[in-house]
Structure formats: structure tokens, C-alpha cells
């Protein structure tokens, strides 16, 4: 009957919180996760709260000061900290608004993909048989089909709107979650604690949602963090091709596309939104890696 003193000291806290603390502590020991996490939080906070500090209309044109360079370059001014584009629109304001578009589309699309993929993967893995076959063959079709082609054709038919983009990106990505979840379910189904609950007389719903789902959430969470970065890139790619959110809403992808023509005169038009994309993706990926390590108990053990 030996329970170590450290765990005795913590037992006054509710169990859920203790688990969260343990995960947080192990995440905190991970330098890149801390950097990535901090950046992600900063980017998200900026996207939400920037109108409090920077109230410039990203659509307002000032044709007299078109292609103004950033403030640190000769000819730049504090009126346009990151310069202006070919129509004299403020680049900083456009990047900030663009972050809202990118992040909200990506989050919503991942939410769609996670819900659809997790549900289908759970059902396919748990019930198996014909249902499993049907779901997984459909998944194979999705995987075999070139994603960009699919998205472009759907957007071309339905038209590019925020909702359509979210649905298309989400549906393109559900397969990844369905496969991961199905694999985890197959192995969890064999575990004795699931069998124990079955022996107690638990029904399917209880087995799935109480015993299996909570145990697959961490791989799904890690996957979602990594995929969100991908979706941001896809969304930028679609916008670049003119298939994204319809103009005039600024998006990072469209800023790249529009700035491309002026790359020799105004480097900042493509470089700055490109940098925004890069930093965001990097931050998310760093955080995702750390999260994976923190949630994987095997790695946690070796980390001490």
C-alpha cells in the first residue's frame, strides 16, 4: 500500500485538474512547445483583439500613396507601418484582417473534419463488418482523389464563400481523422477495460463514449493541431488561385497573388504576408510536436 507523498499532496485537487496539471507540466518542460504555444496564443489574441489597437480599414484605398514601402525603409512613414499595396491599401491592416480569415476558416474546417472523421472512424472501427468496409472504401476514394482538384471543382461549382470553403476543406480532411480514429478504436476495443465494461452490461453508447472516445482524444488533438497548419496553407493556396473567400476581404493567399505582379518594385507585398503564413505554421507545428510528446505517456516517462 505505498502511494508516494507527492501524489498524496496533490490529491486535494479535483482529479480532472490534476491530470491537466500533469500534462501542462510536461508540456512546460518542452522548449519548442513553449515557444510554439506562446506564438500561437499571441497570434490568436492579435487576430481577435487587434481592432482595439489598430483601427485602419483594410479596404480603404489611398491611390496617392500606393506602393509606399514599410516604415523602416526610405520613403516609408508611420502612417503605413508595413507600407501599402498597389491600390494604396494598408498592408498591416490587411495582414491583420487576413489572419482572422485564415484562422477562422482553418479552425472551422478542422472542427468539421474532426467531427466527421472521428464519428465515422469510431463507428467503423467499433462496429466493424460491412459498415467499416463502406466507410473505409469511401475514405480511400477521398485519399486517392487529388485534393486541390476536388476543392477547386467544388468551389468552381458552388462559388467561393466562407461557408463553402469551410465545408470543402473540412470534407477533404475527414479521412485523416477517420483512419487514425479507426485504428485506435480497433486496438482499444481489445483492451480489457472495454471488455470489463462490457462484462458489466454496458451498452454500445457507453462503451464508445465513456471508454473508447476519451482514450483516442489525444492523438486526435495532436493531429488536429498539425492539420490546422495544413489547412491554413490550403486556404492560402486557394485564395492565391482566386478560389478562396471572394474579394474584397483580404486574405493572406490573395495578398500573395496580388503582390506577385509587383514583386520587383515592392517586395513587402509578397514577403510580409508570406512571413505571416510561415510564422503561424511554424508556431502551430512546434506546439503540435510538444503536445504529442506531452500526451504520449511513454515519452513523458522518459522525459522524467
Amino acid at each position, binding site marked *: 500500500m505505498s502511494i508516494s507523498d507527492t501524489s498524496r499532496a496533490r490529491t486535494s485537487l479535483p482529479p480532472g485538474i490534476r491530470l491537466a496539471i500533469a500534462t501542462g507540466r510536461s508540456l512546460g518542460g518542452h522548449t519548442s512547445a513553449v515557444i510554439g504555444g506562446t506564438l500561437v496564443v499571441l497570434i490568436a489574441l492579435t487576430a481577435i483583439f487587434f481592432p482595439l489597437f489598430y483601427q485602419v480599414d483594410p479596404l480603404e484605398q489611398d491611390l496617392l500613396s500606393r506602393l509606399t514601402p514599410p516604415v523602416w525603409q526610405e520613403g516609408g512613414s508611420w502612417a503605413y507601418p508595413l507600407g501599402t499595396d498597389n491600390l494604396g491599401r494598408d498592408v498591416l491592416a490587411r495582414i491583420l484582417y487576413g489572419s482572422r480569415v485564415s484562422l477562422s476558416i482553418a479552425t472551422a474546417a478542422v472542427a468539421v473534419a474532426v467531427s466527421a472523421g472521428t464519428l465515422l472512424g469510431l463507428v467503423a472501427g467499433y462496429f466493424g463488418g460491412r459498415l467499416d468496409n463502406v466507410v473505409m472504401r469511401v475514405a480511400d476514394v477521398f485519399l486517392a482523389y487529388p485534393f486541390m482538384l476536388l476543392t477547386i471543382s467544388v468551389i468552381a461549382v458552388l462559388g467561393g464563400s466562407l461557408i463553402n470553403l469551410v465545408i470543402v476543406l473540412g470534407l477533404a480532411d475527414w479521412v485523416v481523422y477517420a483512419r487514425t480514429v479507426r485504428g485506435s478504436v480497433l486496438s482499444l476495443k481489445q483492451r*480489457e477495460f472495454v471488455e470489463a465494461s462490457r462484462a458489466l452490461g454496458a451498452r454500445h453508447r457507453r462503451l464508445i463514449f465513456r471508454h473508447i472516445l476519451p482514450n483516442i482524444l489525444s492523438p486526435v488533438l495532436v493531429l488536429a493541431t498539425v492539420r490546422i497548419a495544413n489547412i491554413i496553407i490550403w486556404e492560402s493556396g486557394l485564395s492565391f488561385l482566386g478560389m478562396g473567400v471572394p474579394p474584397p476581404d483580404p486574405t493572406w493567399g490573395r495578398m500573395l497573388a496580388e503582390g506577385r505582379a509587383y514583386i520587383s518594385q515592392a517586395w513587402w507585398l509578397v514577403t510580409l504576408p508570406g512571413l505571416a503564413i510561415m510564422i503561424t505554421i511554424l508556431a502551430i507545428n512546434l506546439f503540435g510536436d510538444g503536445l504529442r510528446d506531452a500526451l504520449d505517456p511513454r515519452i513523458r516517462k522518459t522525459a522524467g
Partner: protein
Amino acid sequence: MPELLQVRDLRKYYWKKLGLLRPTTQTVHAVDGISFDLRERETLGLVGESGCGKSTAGRSVLRLIEPTSGEISFNGRDVLKFDSENLRAMRREAQMVFQDPFGSLNPRLTVAQIVEEPLVIHERMTGSERRERAGEMLATVGLRPEHLDRFPHEFSGGQRQRIGIARALMLNPRLLVADEPVSALDVSVQAQVLNLMGDLQERFGLAYLLIAHDLGVVRYICHRVAVMYLGEIVETAPVDDLIRSPLHPYTEGLVSAVPVTHPRLRHRREGLRGEVASPLNPPAGCRFHPRCPYAMPICSEQRPPMREVADQRHVACHLHDAEIAKSTSSKEFPASVGKNSPQSNPGAGIRKGGNP
């Protein structure tokens, strides 16, 4: 005492497809026609090597695995005819304890959630009633109610096994199927858990179906033993009789493989030769004959039926068929019931590589 559980000719086959295009399948005879009885408040040990089908048999009794055929009567009712509601009702009375104390508790749930689960499923109770019952049950199995808010990983193997037992007892069952309940534990902890199981049996009037491979464990806690080999029961006997005087050559091998701890009591270790045949393709006749030191010609031809050779002692072996024994009595074989160690009879009818 009345029979709580009667199992008759229980079979579980698995079919293995040979290939994508070939329509043929191979049959795995995991459990191949076993019968046994379990009385109330009794402990029956199901022993055998790994892969002999003992776990499959145990799980089939609770219908955690659907048996292929056979009859299981629990409390006089036919378990295999139960619909899902009847089955849920039966779950109150027949529970299971698992081998792996690390795998049998959901790592994401607290002990309270684990131990209260049976009540959530079967009873209508308020949260505080459930918690109170769970706390009492933890005390019964030798843990403390304060442990309710911890997670399984904060416990040792023995403690976790106690949690598993507490969960199984919450609904006041009459039968507990225990699948190797102590084999994953340290030896020093094994005895504690076995003692606990013994106490609980007296206190709650439980019957145990104990699946084990360790004869030491079986001897400690069981009243009767059924020895399984390749999906069949080859011998059943009260535990002391079985260990003092094994009848079936396989049992003999198992018993002689148990180490003797007393330094002066060195006995001959006969052990078992050869490997268990594959249940995909079990040997004809007696399944043990390729490994049996006393095999006779008839052993590879006829499957020996289960015979009662003495009070409560059943064995499926041609050696114990009076007529066959008479006709071959000129040859040496252990005709006597009740020898401690196997006779040495080098090479007597040993067949090697008999597995076709």
C-alpha cells in the same frame, strides 16, 4: 450444494480464411467440447498451458465471446438463449476479474468512476449513494475510501487488482470468472490477493471459476480443478487428489513441473516433452498422444471419452479404460492411481513428431 453453473459440450471455433481468392477456410478449435459443473460457493480451477482455450472458455461462459455451440446453464437458465436484456440481468450475477491490472482499468477514469460504473449501469442511485457504496467496497477489498479520487496509474499492481475485484463485486454477483487474476503480480502480492479472494468468497458466498496456469495458485485457492489441453478437458478432480495422484499423463507432466521448495524433497522432474500441437490441426485420437510418454496405438485412433474412475474424479485417457488396460497390461504403464512421480520408462511408446 446446488449447481450454479453447468457447461455441456461447449465449443468455440474460429474460422481463418486462407486467402483472398481461395474459398477454403481453416478451423481453429479453440474450445472443443468441454463440460464442467460449478457449485455455489465453490472454486473450480481451469488450468492448462497458454493457448489451450481456458480463457476462451471462461469468456464464453459470460458470453463475452459467443460460443459456437454447447449449453451453458446458469442458475438453471440457458445462457445461450438470453437476449440482450436477459444478458444484462445476468451480468449482475456473474462478473469477471481480469489478468492485466494495468489494462483492465480505464486510465482516463478515476477509481470512483470505475468502481461506480456497475451501479450507474444497473441501479438508480444518486451520486452520493454510489460514492458511499464505492467507498465501502474499497474498504472491503483492503483499500481506503480516500483512494476514490485517484487515477489507476497511481496504484501498484496489487492495488489495481483490488480495484478490479471491487468493481466486479459492486452488484453482489454469485459467480466470478477470474482470468489469471494474480499471474501478472509479484509473488509476494499474489498471496495477498488470493487471500482476499478467499475471504470474499466466504463473506459474499461467491463461486469462482479461476483460470490459471500456475498449479501453486490453483492448489492454494481451488476446491476442484479441470485440466485443459488443446481445447479439451482431460481431467477433473478435487485439487488435493489431482496434485497427489494425477491420472492423466498430461496432468502428471504439469504436476511434476511444479518446483518443490523443500531441499530434501527432490523429486524426479519429468516435465513435458515436445510442443503443443496447433489447434488449427489437432492430432487425431487423443490430442495429447504425440507428447504422451505412455501412448499406445489406440491413442492415435480413438478419442478417449471422459470416464468417472473414482468419486469426483474424471479422466479422458485410454490408460484408465479398464478393458484396454487389461489387454495391454503386459506393457509397463502407470496403472496405479495414486503415484506421486511418474515412473521412469524410457522410450515407452514415445512418438516424436506425431503432429501431422
